[in-house]
């Protein structure tokens, strides 16, 4: 205990000293040097508080682990198995409730927030395949999201394709992009993939920015075409799904159209999430899934067992990209426009943070991670508007702290400790 307090105080002092030259010292070519003390003190205070919370969390976790271990031990001693059917029921009721929410008068802002969360959850669950199951870090996942969104946008707006063809096309385009990037990178040590995907994410953003004639550049796709035009060429099913879009958006009163679109996109996103969860769950149980877990634990051993590691990794990587691509359709339809800044590096890190927070390998975890990281700042911003500006700082700190304190994440299963 005393040892921990000393360490915490040392860390606080170190933070203060490190903050001084960077955050507090200002040099100005007309006024010379000034020192603003506040940031240094705030930094030190944050480290003190954060560190204390961390220590408390570690302590709580230690006790909690003991509790779960004891429970599991008694379970196995008395031969009790916690029922699986009950879980399925809970899940069904949960999905039904979420689906019913808009009908029960969920406010528009909430519908939108939940919808976005579900999109992120879909992406995070998909990303779970590469990061959680195969143990490969992807730092440019936003690019696959972008590829999906832009493919969909371009196909519908510029080519006038039917929604139901453009939608899967978005996923396929993202998956194929994954193939192109994955082929060279996946043959190598896993961390190359992190850098290659990072670079890829940036490259995609630059292509979108620079090829203005096609993508609209920094301005939104569809540029100067009327908002809502993504929703037009949808075919019969699509028109049914997005009725307001079948009629020219301008003749409606904007507010009511948006509410309708929100609600329908909400259901669409929910269906997408449920299907995604089901697919990833099945994948995890499949042969490929087991190969992936083997790969995460020990790549060399997996190779020796006759697993074609590159191919399995490629499958995982493409499956991840596929879900990101499909999820890209939702914001395109919902917002009616997309722009490159939605898909920057921060977004990619946000996805990783969701997976990491929730727990590597846990589908439930990814959904909870998405919900926490997307909804919490948005809700807090109602009271403290500056929360949104600091959230990436917070996400970064959370990722690092999580790795040090609880690398398996909130919902991750107990992973082998100690061994390299």
């Amino acid at each position, binding site marked *: 205990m005393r040892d921990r307090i000393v360490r915490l105080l040392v*860390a606080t002092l170190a933070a203060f*000293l*490190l903050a001084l*030259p*960077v*955050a507090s*010292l200002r*040099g*100005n*070519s007309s*006024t*010379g*040097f000034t020192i603003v003390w506040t940031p240094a003190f705030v*930094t030190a205070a944050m480290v003190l508080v954060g560190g204390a919370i961390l220590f408390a969390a570690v302590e709580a976790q230690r006790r909690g682990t003991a509790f779960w271990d004891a429970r599991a031990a008694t379970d196995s001693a008395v031969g009790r198995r916690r029922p699986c059917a009950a879980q399925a029921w809970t899940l069904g009721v949960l999905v039904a409730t979420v689906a019913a929410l808009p009908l029960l008068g969920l406010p528009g802002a909430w519908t939108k927030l939940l919808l976005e969360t579900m999109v992120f959850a879909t992406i995070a669950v998909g990303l779970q395949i590469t*990061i959680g199951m195969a*143990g*490969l*870090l992807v*730092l440019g996942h936003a690019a696959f999201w972008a590829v999906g969104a832009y493919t969909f946008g371009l196909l519908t707006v510029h080519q006038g394709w039917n929604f139901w063809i453009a939608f899967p096309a978005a996923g396929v385009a993202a998956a194929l992009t994954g193939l192109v*990037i994955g082929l*060279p*990178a996946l043959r*190598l*040590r896993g*961390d*190359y993939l*992190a*850098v*290659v995907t*990072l*670079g*890829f994410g*940036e*490259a995609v953003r630059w*292509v979108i920015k*620079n090829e203005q004639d096609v993508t609209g550049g920094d301005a939104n796709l569809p540029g100067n075409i009327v908002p809502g035009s993504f929703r037009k060429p949808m075919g019969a099913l699509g028109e049914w799904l997005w009725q307001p879009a079948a009629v020219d958006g301008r003749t409606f009163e904007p507010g009511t159209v948006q509410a309708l679109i929100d609600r329908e996109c909400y259901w669409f996103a929910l269906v997408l999430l449920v299907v995604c969860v089901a697919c990833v769950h099945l994948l995890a149980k499949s042969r490929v899934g087991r190969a992936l877990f083997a790969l995460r634990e020990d790549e060399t051993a997996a190779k020796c067992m006759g697993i074609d590691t590159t191919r399995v990794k490629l499958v995982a990587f493409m499956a991840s990209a596929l879900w990101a691509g499909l999820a890209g359709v939702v914001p395109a339809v919902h917002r009616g426009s997309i722009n490159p800044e939605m898909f920057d*590096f*921060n977004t990619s*890190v946000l996805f*990783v943070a969701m997976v*990491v927070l929730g727990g*590597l390998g846990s589908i439930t975890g990814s959904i909870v991670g998405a919900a926490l990281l997307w909804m919490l700042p948005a809700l807090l911003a109602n009271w403290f508007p500056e929360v949104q*500006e*600091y959230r*990436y*700082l917070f*996400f*970064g*700190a*959370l*990722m*690092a*702290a*999580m*790795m*040090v304190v609880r*690398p398996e994440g909130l919902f991750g299963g107990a*992973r082998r400790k*100690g061994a*390299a």
Partner: protein
Amino acid sequence: MLQNLWNGLVQGGIYAIVALGYTMVYGILLLINFAHGEVLMIGAYTGVATLAGCAGTGAMEAVGFMPCLAMAIIGATCVSAAYGFAIERAVYRPLRGAPSLSPLIGAIGVSMVLQNYVMRTQGASPIYAPMSHPAYVASLGASNWDIGPVSIAPLDLVVLVVCVALMAGLWMFVQRTRTGTAMRATSQDRVMAGLVGIDVNRVISVTFVIGSALAAVAGVLLALFNTQAKYDMGFTSGMKAFTAAVLGGIGNVPGAMLGGVLLGVAEAVGIQLLGAEYKEVYSFVILLAVLIVRPKGILGERVAEKV
């Protein structure tokens, strides 16, 4: 064309000293230190702030630009080295021996924190080096020398001289000194290094301190080159320097130097041939190409290791 090559060479010198930091850390820990670019950015901020402050207090008028630049570089070096040391202690050391994904994610986290921290405390807009100050104009702002078709700015020469001196110094350090040899031994077999009595933790700390100090110098030079320091400068230059390290063969010190220079030149050629629009993308394309054609890099793995 020649002019572009020259510019690329100078730029490449900067990449090279940043790449050294990546390569040294990777050599020992097999970890891509994603926070390295941010350490560079912090060095750049410290350096530019020092320069600006010197200009503001009148010190620059009194002693001239070069002493102020030296002070800025020394200040930046100390601050960055402290950051490098602290990052290793706080995040990487507890994660040593964990599955390789954990330190990588931790590194991303640190990088996010630092980038956003500087953005919040220093503002999202860049801070500028006092490049119009009379002292600067008198020393480095003098007109360029024209050698044939190439026009060489005094700043270019300063950058090149500093880069070459640093690379030579590091080379001597790694090859000749006790700590340098310990570093090489540690990068080849960490456990065995401990078994011959090398304090591995100390070696790793020294590696981070040296790498960060080099990054700080690169950061200040880069800031002078671009006349400004911005919170996201570490991100882009980090990516390029890492490419340079991979190009030369990651974990390989001479490789990083060679890779840096080659990348700078290749980028210059790319800009010349294909335009500056995709300046930020060339390094990525080169990275992919290297990974496809020769993933070990140019100088990687000269000796096959017996198991």
